[in-house]
């Protein structure tokens, strides 16, 4: 038997993993506890990460380069996000909370301006460019390209909002839906594949930690959980019967 921080950590790891997996049986105290721990730990984790990775180097590293060495030069323009950030905090003072709206306005406006260009370029123009057909290729490939063309056009027709889906438009948009459905099916199939892969990774960890080096963490915790879940569900049953009676 060995005890050190690593072993304790691994026992925690196995406990957390199995508690989350217990959700498959149904909502139960183990899952509730691990869910709540997860929420708290992740909030703290992300907060520390945001502070040290974003705010500290990007803001203070630029406003006070002598104190915070982040490899940036002094940049006065970074007073603006400081002010906007403070506006955001003024939310806590009701009489000044309207200032936070300016920060939100800044963010929303900026997002709109940036995205309009990015999406026009990568999603519209690039896709249109890729619709070009190389007719010097084999017959089957040309056929494939034409099929893609038909799919794209009919898919776009499906998205027409100001025309009723009747007559020719109705029929074309129907074809469009077929292409969309095939795409969704493909995404679904790929998702199945990816999720199973992740599960394999998780199970491999559990298998690795069932050996003696880790004081048989997995089997011990697994048995413990099964027993306590059994007791818990029996108790639940008793309670409901009492209630009924």
């Amino acid at each position, binding site marked *: 038997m060995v005890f050190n921080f690593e072993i304790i950590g691994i026992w925690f790891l196995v406990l957390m993993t199995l508690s989350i997996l217990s959700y498959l049986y149904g909502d139960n105290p183990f899952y509730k506890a691990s869910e709540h721990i997860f929420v708290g730990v992740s909030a703290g984790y992300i907060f520390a990460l945001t502070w040290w990775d974003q705010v500290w180097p990007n803001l203070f590293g630029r406003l006070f380069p002598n104190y915070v060495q982040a490899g940036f030069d002094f940049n006065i323009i970074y007073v603006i996000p400081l002010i906007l950030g403070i506006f955001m905090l003024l939310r806590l003072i009701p009489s000044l909370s309207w200032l936070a709206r300016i920060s939100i306005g800044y963010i929303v406006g900026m997002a709109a301006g940036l995205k309009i260009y990015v999406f026009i370029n990568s999603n519209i123009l690039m896709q249109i460019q890729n619709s070009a057909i190389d007719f010097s290729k084999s017959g089957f490939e040309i056929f494939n390209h034409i099929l893609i063309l038909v799919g794209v056009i009919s898919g776009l027709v499906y998205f027409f909002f100001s025309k009723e889906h009747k007559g020719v438009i109705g029929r074309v948009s129907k074809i469009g839906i077929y292409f969309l459905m095939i*795409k969704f099916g493909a995404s679904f199939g*790929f998702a199945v594949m990816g999720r199973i892969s992740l599960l394999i990774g998780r199970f491999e960890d559990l298998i690795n930690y069932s050996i003696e080096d880790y004081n048989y963490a997995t089997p011990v915790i697994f048995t413990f959980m099964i027993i306590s879940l059994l007791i818990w569900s029996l108790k639940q049953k008793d309670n409901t019967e009492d209630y009924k009676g």
Partner: protein
Amino acid sequence: MKNYILKLGNLDRRIIFLLIGLSVLIPLINPNLVDLPLGQDRNTKIVYDSISELNDGDRVLISFAYGASTKPEVHPMAVGLLNHLFTKGIKVYIVSLWPESPIMAEQAISAIKESQLFDIKDGIDFVMFDYKVGGFVVIKGIADNFRDIYQQDKNGISINDLPIMEGIYDVKDFDFVFDFSAGVPGNAEWVQYACDPKNVPLSSGCTSIMVTDAIPYVESGQLKGILAGMPGAAEYEKMVYDFMVKEQNNNNKYINLEKDIVKGKAYARMSAQSIAHLLMVLFIIIGNIAYYFSRKEN
């Protein structure tokens, strides 16, 4: 009989969960139970061929953009690629775009070092850079001015003192870019901001869920093939394994001839994956039969 089928239609979710769990667990505990031959996807082959066309001494930029949660899918690809590149004597440059990526990169490199197959040195054969905040901004920066983004490597050594960094100024100085990604920023950003405008060949290994979104880029040649999820990793791993065994027999100067080459991790996991997929298809068929009968009933 009919009643049983109808009952199957409303099967308790927990039974499905249990069966899926077992179908993954059993092949993992006993990998020899089922042994399936691996196929070859066209896109995997394109990736392998594009890497094979590189020459001794070429420079490849590898971008790590995945974290621990998607490690099972992407990590084997990264190890496979590193094996492939070091066998060919190619210089490797590693950048990290996700906060957790440096840890992943470190683990991949140490896996290579532990195998003792290659005599690789930090700063000469490969170099790693720490995580930089900014997502696509970092990619744009690499495309334009590498040294503006990175002044020092992960160990804190200035890039001016690193022999491997000689002549590297922007993305055009690399012969190939390889992206490992599990989301944003990932291969789409590399296409849009760096490799397409600057015309540098790019390939990607990503999680399976990203593949449908990336496939238009593959079809148009903006991505040179793609490694799709764990099956893609397994296929690529196998090709690299065969290549390494062949090179070892040919007395390749980069491979340590005394050490054995071990098969990668993804390969062993494929039987579990196959069984689980088969089970899902069975579920779908059973579900449809039950649905057919229940509709007849009404």
